[in-house]
């Protein structure tokens, strides 16, 4: 048993900053176990001030390259809330279908590129290609199909262009809906194969558990992604989305440049695990079957299983999309866009981004120009919970080697997949 532990996982720059993991233990006593967030502020709430209502979604979609559809959708919903625009059920279904394409993209990437290397004991996806070529090819094929799905509905894979306040700029044709239905039906067995590969190695995920408060959207009769009210595992009552500031209770802490959040406890969790714990009974039949296959019970309190729940959500997304497409193939939305008047207003909205519940609020003046914004992203809501997990995990694994302690901590962070550095991806090279 190591009496002394010194772990420093640091990222190199602030501008492309991630979190840091810092652990200190002396004579078997943990002195420090911290998840630190050193990223520079991004200022998106300032970027949107002074912009027209129809420019906002294009700006905020650049917050994240992985979940740009979620950021666009929530901004558009907030504009619609401010201008009191009601969409038809058909258009809301098409929005949900578009949102699902991103959910599949992101979940497949997370499980395939970030989690799978841990399961097969390699350092990244590059050596995984060498050792498990067939598996990686399946993951890439699923990801490509999800991207093409986004291309069709959102106009492009990342940073969507066809979703606008009031509806869409374009509705796919009946033939395009039929083709999409066929492609998604073909994806189900492929996704099943990927799930079975993950299942075969799922015992590599640590058995750590810690109960916390779980927060997600909830709506009767549906596993909520696109719409709903705010639910928590600590209360029976739902909270309206326009009161989201009372939920997040943002605060600052010296170990982070990002704001953290807490509601009824020291911290709460958002993401796939929270959605599952609050909405499990609304999963599609196939998703319930997969949950059973992975041995997930009524409540899952192991944060490492977040990625397993993401796979279960992939089954739900595919199965529910097929059901919606069966309607759209015969009865596509009649109108692409609702008419509306630009008025002064205060609009708030929420969607479930792949990493958890996401809130936006905007104020508009009578010309439809944004005068203030408040954006609350899932990762910031999860930072405090990740810190509490780190505090609980470290003492329980101090008997392991320092290398293994570091590995388990890094796997814990990866389970959350914190969205803290989508701002830049520049090359940094040396000529050889």
């Amino acid at each position, binding site marked *: 048993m190591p009496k002394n532990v010194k772990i420093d996982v640091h990222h190199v720059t602030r501008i492309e900053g991630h979190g840091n993991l810092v652990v200190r233990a002396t004579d078997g006593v943990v002195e420090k176990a911290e998840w630190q967030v050193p990223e520079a502020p991004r200022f998106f709430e300032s970027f949107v001030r002074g912009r027209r209502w129809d420019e906002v979604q294009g700006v905020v979609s650049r917050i994240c390259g992985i979940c740009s559809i979620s950021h666009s959708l929530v901004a558009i919903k907030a504009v619609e809330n401010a201008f009191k625009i009601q969409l038809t059920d058909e258009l809301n279904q098409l929005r949900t279908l578009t949102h699902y394409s991103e959910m599949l993209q992101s979940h497949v990437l997370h499980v395939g590129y970030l989690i799978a290397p841990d399961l097969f004991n390699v350092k990244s996806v590059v050596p995984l290609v060498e050792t498990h070529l067939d598996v990686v090819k399946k993951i890439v094929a699923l990801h490509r199909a999800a991207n093409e799905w986004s291309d069709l509905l959102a106009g492009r894979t990342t940073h969507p262009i066809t979703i606008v306040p009031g509806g869409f700029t374009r509705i796919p044709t009946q033939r395009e809906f039929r083709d999409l239905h066929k492609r998604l039906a073909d994806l189900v067995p492929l996704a099943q194969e990927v799930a079975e590969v993950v299942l075969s190695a799922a015992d590599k995920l640590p058995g750590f558990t810690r109960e916390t408060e779980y927060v997600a959207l909830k709506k009767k009769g549906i596993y909520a992604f696109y719409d709903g009210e705010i639910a928590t595992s600590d209360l029976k009552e739902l909270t309206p989305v326009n009161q989201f500031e009372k939920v997040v209770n943002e605060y600052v802490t010296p170990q982070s440049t990002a704001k953290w959040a807490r509601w009824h406890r020291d911290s709460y969790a958002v993401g796939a695990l929270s959605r599952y714990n609050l909405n499990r009974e609304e999963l599609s039949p196939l998703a319930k079957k997969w949950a059973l296959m992975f041995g997930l019970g009524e409540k899952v309190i192991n944060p490492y299983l977040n990625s397993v729940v993401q796979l279960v959500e992939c089954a739900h997304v595919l199965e529910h999309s097929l059901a919606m497409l069966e309607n759209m193939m015969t009865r596509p939305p009649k109108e692409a866009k609702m008419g509306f008047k630009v008025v002064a207003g205060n609009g708030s909205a929420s969607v479930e981004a792949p990493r958890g519940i996401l809130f936006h609020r905007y104020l508009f003046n009578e010309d439809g120009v944004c005068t203030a914004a408040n954006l609350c992203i899932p990762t910031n809501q999860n930072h405090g919970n990740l810190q509490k997990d780190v505090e609980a995990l470290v003492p329980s694994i101090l008997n392991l080697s320092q290398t293994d302690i570091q590995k388990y901590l890094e796997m814990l962070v990866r389970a959350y997949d914190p969205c803290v550095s989508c701002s830049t991806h520049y*090359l940094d090279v040396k000529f050889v």
Partner: protein
Amino acid sequence: MEKRDAIVVLGNPFMGDEGVGPALLEILRQEPNLPASLDLIDTGGNILNALHSLSGRRKVLFIDCALMGLQPGDSLRFLPAEVETQKQMPRLSLHEGDLLQMLETAKLLGQSAEQVVILGIEPDRVEPGEGLSPTLSSRLGFYLQQILSEFKNPI
């Protein structure tokens, strides 16, 4: 069927010179004499999406902001094999990314293009804010000529 070419840009227009790729793509979209076989692709902030822009293509040119040890505004055309990455990624999140690692993955998967070329542009300013630095803005025309010359002659 004849294989197509592509120009793929990465970058964030709200991080100063990091957005040089998307800025150049917007200019290219107005260019009247682009070859018909050339696709313009903006992968935005998601490097992993760029993987799908390679397969089945003849030539792909990536345009990206690059720390190369040159003067701000300098640009350099190079092949992936001519450089080593200096990026240290703890792999804590999908949100970090390295173009060179993505290109290597594509190659190992057998899903790369016949030729991959990178046009790196040394930034002057990478920080939150819209618009390019004056250093890079004043050279957009020069970068454009470099880009177009890539597709004037067959490989």
